[in-house]
Structures are given as C-alpha cells and as structure tokens.
C-alpha cells in the first residue's frame, strides 16, 4: 500500500460529514485515481459496513447489500428500511463502484438519499465519474438527488507532479516521466513503480502485466484463475478450481497484486483484474469458467451461475440459470438486469423450441419496455408475435400485440400503436372473453383517452369493464374504471368522472394494489387540472404526491400539474419555483413544468419565455396528442399576445385549434379561440367551449370575470375585467394585475385607461404587496395551524400534504418572518395580522 498523498482535505471533508451525520456522499473520480484508497484510509480504524458492486453485465439485484448482511428479500424500499436500521447500529457504510450498481441497488440509493437526513449515518458511494454519461442509470439517480440536502458529491483528483515525484524517489525512478505518462493516476503510478521495468509501460494494462511478470510462473497462473471471477473469489472456490496453484496464494498476496477481503480474494484493483483476464487464452478461460460453474452449482447465486455458464459456452446451463436470474431481478425491480439476463438466454436459445423462444422474447420485450429501451422491446415483441403466429397460437399473439401497442406510444409511433391494438382485439375476440381481451380493450381505451377521443374512450372502457366483471378480475375492473372515469373527466363530465376514478381507487385499496390507487389519484389530479377544476385538482394532486412519496413512487407528473395549478390560481412564485425544481426530469412532466414556467414569465414580462416554450413544443410534437399540444399552443399564443405580436398570436393559436375543435376540448378550444378572437382573426367559435371563454367572446366580461373568480383564477378574472367599457371595473382589474405583478397586461391596461382620460394610479410599491411577510397562500394555511399549536404531522394530515412538504413550508415561514421558533412565528404572525388574512 502506498502512502496516501494529497488527500488531507478530502479526509477532512469525510470526517466533517461523519460528525454531522445524515449524509450520503458520492465520491467520484476516474478508475485508478484512488477512491478506494481514500475511503479505506478514512474507515481504517472505524467500524463500518462494506458493500461492492460488481463489474458484470448482469449483476445480482441488491448485490452489495448481500455483503452488508441486510435481508434483501423484498422491494427496494423494504431493503432501504432494513439498511437504515442496520445503520443505526453501525452508522458508516461504504458502497464501492456504484457505477456498476444494479437497478434494485440504485433504487435503494434513491430512498437512502431522501431518508438519510436526520439519522446519524454516513454513506459513502464511490463511482467512476468519467464513465457515468448522461444516459447512465447512476447519472439519473444523481440528477434526482441533486436537490436533496443530505446528498453531495466530492471528487478525487489526480496526483500532482510533486506527489508523483515523492512516490518515485525511493525507487530511483524518473518522477517527471512517470507523471507525464500517467497524468497522476495513482494506480497506474504504483503499478509502474512495482513493475520496475527499464522502459516505462505505455498503458495501465502493460504496467499491470509487467508487474505480474515478476511473479513465479505458478503464482502467475493462479492470477489467471482469480481473474475469471469478477466478484470476490471465495477461498473454497479457489481451492476447488485452482488445485495445487492455491499454494501460491501467499506469494500473490505478499506481492500486493491480490488482497484478502472478508472471506475471499480480490485483485488490488478492478483495472488489474481486467488486464490479467484479457490475456488468459480463450480455451483456458472457457475451461476455468466451466470449473467455476461446477463448483458453484451446489447452491450459488443464479446471476453468478448464469455469468459463468455463458463464459463456459454451456448453453444448457445458461438456459437453466439466466431466465431464473431474470425473474428474480424483475421481482426486485432490477429491470435492466432482468432484460440483460433474458438477452443472454436468447443468445443461447438455438436449441429451444419455437414456443420456449417466443416466451423468452415476450419476456425480454416486457423488461426492455419497462426500462424505456423501446427499440429493443419492439424488436423482441415483433419476433415473438411472428413465432406465435407460426405456432398458430393467436391468444398469445394477440396478448403481445396489445402490449406492443403501448410500447409504440412512448416514442410517438402512434399509427403503429393503433394497428397493433386493432390487431390484438381482432385476434382475441375470436376466443371466449378472458383477461387478455379485457387488457386489450383497456389498452384501446387508454389510447382513445390519450387522444382525447372521449366518447370512444368511455366505450372501450365499458367493454373492458364488462369482460373483467364477468371474469371476476378485480384488477381489470379497476383499470377499466380508471379509463372510463378519465375519459368522462376530459369530456367535461366532472362529477361522473370523479365517481368512476374514486371507485377505481377504492377497488385498488381493497386489492391492496398501490399502483392502482396511485394511478387513479394521479389521473384525478392532472385530469381536473386540465379541466380547470383547480381546487379539486390541487386536493387530489397533494393526495397523490403524499401517497406516492410515502412509497417512493414517481411524483414528478403530479408535481408538474401542481406547478401549473399554482400558476393558474395566481401563485406565481410557488408555481415557477416548483416548475424549475422539476426541470431535471425528462419527458412528459417536463412539458407541463415548462408550460407553467413559460406562462409565469410571459405574464410578468420576464425574459426566457421562448426558450422554455420552444422546448415544450419540441417535446410535445412527437406524441402529437392534444393534451400536450393544446396546452403548449395556448401558452405560446398567450406569450405572443403579451409581447404585442398579433400575427404570431394567430399563428400559434391556429396551430392547435383544429385538433382542439375536433376533440371538443372545452378548455383548449376555448383558450385557442379566445386568442384568435383577441387578435381579430376569428368571427365565430362553437357554443360548447368552456364557459368563461364563451362569455368573454360574447362580450359579457363581468360574468366571465365572476366565472374565473369562481375557479380561483385571479389573473384570468382581471384579464376579463380589463376588457370592460366601465372605467371602474378596469381600475379594479388594474389593481389586481399590479398585485399579481402582471407587467405587460397592467401596462397595456394603463395605456388604454390613459387614452380614455382616466386618472391612473401608479404601480404598487413593495410595501403595499399582498401581505407583510410575503407568505404564499399555502404558507398562510400552514402558519394558521402552527399558530394554533399543531404539530407538523397534524398539519400534514389536515391539509393533505406530506409531512416533508410541511417541514419545507415551516422553514420557509420561519425564514420569511425572520424568526427561529414556531412560537416566535405565531407571535410575529398575530402581530402582523396574518392570521386574519383569508385566501385571496
């Protein structure tokens, strides 16, 4: 072991994090730079838990936590909870090589990142930052955890020239040349120094091989054996596989090439293992894999067995272990690994019957679809379909067509999705109605719902419902109710839609199926948002977010709709802040977040409108669905109008209008008609558009304003009043616009009033803002309850918020009121009269 140079600062940072506790620290750096050495030096004299991720295409789900001794039979959330309990006893965990982590392990890290705050534990996760590109699963986790206060990253730099010289000196080596060659990579430097060759090895690999050459031939052969075991090689395994060579182990350990870890043997560094493995002759490698396979077969881990089976070229063994490993990985939500295991099985499937092969392809299609690898999923499913067709098994063929149709939707291949769905129904309707048919109907209902073909959505949903009910398939019933309810909502049948969706959620509760409950709550929240039922939408969005956060489900889509609802209810600060916090996300939640942010900027007259709304349009286009396009074009038309560009207002509004009319979307048709009418390019709109817009187009601005106010849309209400002929009403509108900070609308109205000769008040000074503490409506809600002496948990229950959200609100309140305790907040609030203020 080399002396640890230039790491004092990093060690001090680690120590500070340990003392503080409740931290997850990602330790990044290139391979060989010295991450492990740093972490080892830090944990040397401390009790600590250790786990390592393996360099395997198909790592074992939860692999590193197996080392830690935590029960890994369960979902990631349960494993995380077990781990947190373990950390209460030993509050230090080192997780090595997180860039190789399986999906289940990454899920555990996600949960840890959010829950470690408040504990006494420190978790260190090392990773190769140069191998984690934007598509890498770990990068996605890092992105998600970027805003978590308990999570941070440090990076281990390369050694400086001075350090390399200091290391080289005792060997009499040329520090300058070594530094130039290695760029200060600590592992490379030590390998060169250990090899002690007269000419410097050109690569890390050469350095490792040169160093290995200094061993006796038998010891060198033992290295070959160890190199074929990617994870830690157990002693008993080496004894079984290496034969007499095992006697040379002492020599390998003494030279520092290998080291002992727990009950096994590992290379000093993964780079060294790879270098040695790369020069093992192919025949020898296959033979070693075969021997390891036999030795492990008495009860080894199936993922490991599958790896060595493939290395041994033993197809029968691959087919024995890989599908089983895939099923276990899928059960642990490690879908990438499950897909890789199925792919491995497929590589060795030439001996299988067409039927078995088709089943493997269908399973591979399912797992790749979950991980978002749509191309692979589509290819496998098409192949499975072709095999089932040849086998004349229309039931299975039809089932895969239905699943394939959903996979086509994500990349926007709508026409193919429609064809696949139609085909599945054709095939499955020839059989007595079964679960497959119920699912195929439901899939068709889902596509109609996405396209906002609401009547057809209800119709297909009813068909699915009939089949599922006859079968007693409660899960199918719950899904069908969800589809029917959502389509009713989108048709403006609000009460009926809510009724169906609540029944779907109730059924989910009785089935204890959290996905069904979550889906129904999410649909209620976002669907009611799209229908401008803002108060109800907000209630269900909070309910969905609280439900999902507790279970570590994704909340970003509901959060994005919550941001939009904040904006439409006049809470621009809150809406913009929430929208921005979501922009690390991809896909559909990003579109709605961008729209919310774009609306706020446009209404304030702030810069940066085009960049967000252009991106939203780009993201919405491939799907081609009204629910996104209608929303984006409405926001873009509004933004164009607020900059005074009539021509572009018409252009943007018209781009979304025909589709909104075709689908009879009350709100998108209403808003897009309104902007064209404002820009004087529309004579007539249908009479079914949403009421506030219809009233405005009819010139009944006072009633329109009342209708907007009833929906709690202060900006839209003021915008309607501004169109009045009555100076008093216009002045009232101006006060509201000033209060909101609606620069462009206020400026335009001021000009109009001045042109009429009215006396126009100046804009508001900061001191006349909404309330002295600048608290948001939601913060006022929380403050009222806090001032009444309620605990955060009670506040959360009463307002249907997650306790964590309440924590955030309380700290914001303390900050804004510039007080330190809840008691002081209550006192400050009553002094300022805040508790009497009602929601606007």
């Amino acid at each position, binding site marked *: 072991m080399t002396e640890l140079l230039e790491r004092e600062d990093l060690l001090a940072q680690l120590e500070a994090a340990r003392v503080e506790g409740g931290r997850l620290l990602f330790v990044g750096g290139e391979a060989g730079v010295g991450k492990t050495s740093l972490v080892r030096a830090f944990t040397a004299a401390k009790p600590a838990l250790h786990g390592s991720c393996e360099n395997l295409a198909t790592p074992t789900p939860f692999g590193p936590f197996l080392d830690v001794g935590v029960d890994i039979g369960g979902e990631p959330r349960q494993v995380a909870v077990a781990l947190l309990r373990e950390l209460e006893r030993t509050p230090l965990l080192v997780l090595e090589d997180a860039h190789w982590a399986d999906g289940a392990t990454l899920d555990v890290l996600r949960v840890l990142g959010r829950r470690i705050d408040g504990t006494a534990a420190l978790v260190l996760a090392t990773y190769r930052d140069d191998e984690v590109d934007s598509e890498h699963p770990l990068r996605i986790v890092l992105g998600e955890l970027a805003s978590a206060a308990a999570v941070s990253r440090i990076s281990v730099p390369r050694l400086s020239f001075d350090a390399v010289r200091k290391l080289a000196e005792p060997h009499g080596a040329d520090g300058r040349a070594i530094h130039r060659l290695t760029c200060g990579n600590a592992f490379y430097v030590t390998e060169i120094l250990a090899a002690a060759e007269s000419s410097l090895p050109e690569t890390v690999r050469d350095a490792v091989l040169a160093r290995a050459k200094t061993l006796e031939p038998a010891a060198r052969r033992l290295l070959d054996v160890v190199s074929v075991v990617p994870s830690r090689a157990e002693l008993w395994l080496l004894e079984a596989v290496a034969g007499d060579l095992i006697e040379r182990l002492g020599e390998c350990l003494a030279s520092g090439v290998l080291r002992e870890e727990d009950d096994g043997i590992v290379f000093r560094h993964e780079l060294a293992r790879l270098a040695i493995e790369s020069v093992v002759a192919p025949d020898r490698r296959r033979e070693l894999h075969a021997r390891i396979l036999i030795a492990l077969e008495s009860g080894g881990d199936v993922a490991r067995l599958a790896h060595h089976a493939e290395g041994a070229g033993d197809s029968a063994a691959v087919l024995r272990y890989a599908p089983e490993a895939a099923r276990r990985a899928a059960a642990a939500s490690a879908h990438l690994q499950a897909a890789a295991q199925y792919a491995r099985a497929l590589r060795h499937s030439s001996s299988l019957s067409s039927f078995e092969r088709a089943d493997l392809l269908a399973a591979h299609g399912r797992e790749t679809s979950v991980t978002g690898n749509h191309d692979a999923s589509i290819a496998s499913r098409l192949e499975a379909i072709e095999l089932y067709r040849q086998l004349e098994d229309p039931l299975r063929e039809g089932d895969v067509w239905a699943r394939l149709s959903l996979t086509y939707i994500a990349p926007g291949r709508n026409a193919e999705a429609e064809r696949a769905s139609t085909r599945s129904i054709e095939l499955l309707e020839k059989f007595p109605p079964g679960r497959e048919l119920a699912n195929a109907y439901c899939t068709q209902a889902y596509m109609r719902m996405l396209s906002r073909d609401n009547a057809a959505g209800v119709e297909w949903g009813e068909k699915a419902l009939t089949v599922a009910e006859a079968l007693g398939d409660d899960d199918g019933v719950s899904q069908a109710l969800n589809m029917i309810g959502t389509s009713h909502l989108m048709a403006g049948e609000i009460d009926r839609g809510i009724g169906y969706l609540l029944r779907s959620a109730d059924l989910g509760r009785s089935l204890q199926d959290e996905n069904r409950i979550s889906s129904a709550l999410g649909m209620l929240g976002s669907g009611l948002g799209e229908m401008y039922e803002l108060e109800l939408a907000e209630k269900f969005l909070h309910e969905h977010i609280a439900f999902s956060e507790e279970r570590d489900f994704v909340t970003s889509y509901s959060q994005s709709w919550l941001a939009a609802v904040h904006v439409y209810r006049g809470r621009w600060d809150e809406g*913009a802040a929430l929208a921005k916090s979501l922009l690390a996300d991809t896909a559909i939640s990003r579109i709605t977040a961008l729209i919310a942010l774009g609306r*706020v900027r446009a209404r304030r007259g*702030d810069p940066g409108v085009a960049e967000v709304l252009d991106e939203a349009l780009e993201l919405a286009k491939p799907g081609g669905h009204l629910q996104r396009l209608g929303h984006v074009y409405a926001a873009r038309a509004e933004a164009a109008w607020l900059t005074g560009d009539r021509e572009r207002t018409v252009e943007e509004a018209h781009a979304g209008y025909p589709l909104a009319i075709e689908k009879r979307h009350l709100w998108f048709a209403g808003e897009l008609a309104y902007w064209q009418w404002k820009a004087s390019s529309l004579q007539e709109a249908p009479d079914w558009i949403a009421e506030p817009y219809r009233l405005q187009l009819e010139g009944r601005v006072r009633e329109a304003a009342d209708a907007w106010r009833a929906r709690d849309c202060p900006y839209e209400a003021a915008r309607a009043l501004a169109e009045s002929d009555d100076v008093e009403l216009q002045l009232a509108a101006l006060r509201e616009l000033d209060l909101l900070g609606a620069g462009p609308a206020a400026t335009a109205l001021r000009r109009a009033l001045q042109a009429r000769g009215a006396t126009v008040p*100046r804009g508001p*000074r*900061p001191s006349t803002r909404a309330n002295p503490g600048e608290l948001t409506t939601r913060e006022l809600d929380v403050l009222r309850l806090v001032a009444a002496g309620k605990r955060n948990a009670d506040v959360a229950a009463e307002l249907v918020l997650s306790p964590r959200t309440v924590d955030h609100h309380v700290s914001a309140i303390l900050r804004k009121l510039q007080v330190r305790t809840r008691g002081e907040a209550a006192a400050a609030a009553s002094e300022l009269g805040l508790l009497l203020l009602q929601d606007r």
Partner: protein
Amino acid sequence: METYVILRRRGWQSGEELQEAAARSTAEGERMSEDIRWIRSYVLEEGDGVGTVCIYQASSPEAIRAHASAANLPVDEIVRVADTVVVRADPQPATIES
C-alpha cells in the same frame, strides 16, 4: 449565470430610502450568492424620488424576482443582456445623500 438589466423606476421617495434598500439587497444577495450577483447600479433622478437601473448576474429571472421579494425591492422590468460593449470605465460614483 446570465446578465440582466433590472428597471426599478421611481422605487423610492428619497436617497436615504434607497440606501436602506441597498443594504437589504446586499444582505439578501449574499444569502443567495449561488443564484444572484449584483454588479452595479445607476441611480435615476425621477423628480419626486429616485429609481435605479441595476445590472445583475443571475441564474434565472425567477432568482431576480425572489431576491427582489426578499429584499423588498420593486421590479418594473427585467431584460436579459445579450452582449456587453465597454467603451469607457464607469464615471466615479457620487455618494448619495438624502
């Protein structure tokens, strides 16, 4: 960080009021130093009071709004700066006295 011009027309009754605002602005700016940096300001003679044209660097328009709201400063308009052309150094600042 991008550069922005912020117009705060007729924001204050007096130079004294403006100085108090400047102190709040500095304090809040330090608290949000990752999102906002105050570069310089030009104080406007507005007849019945004073206003400012401020040059800031900020991570987003929302950061400027949040800073203004925290420091109790008015904002009339935020404009993003596309480029800077420096011809001469700024004139010597005069001390503002009420």
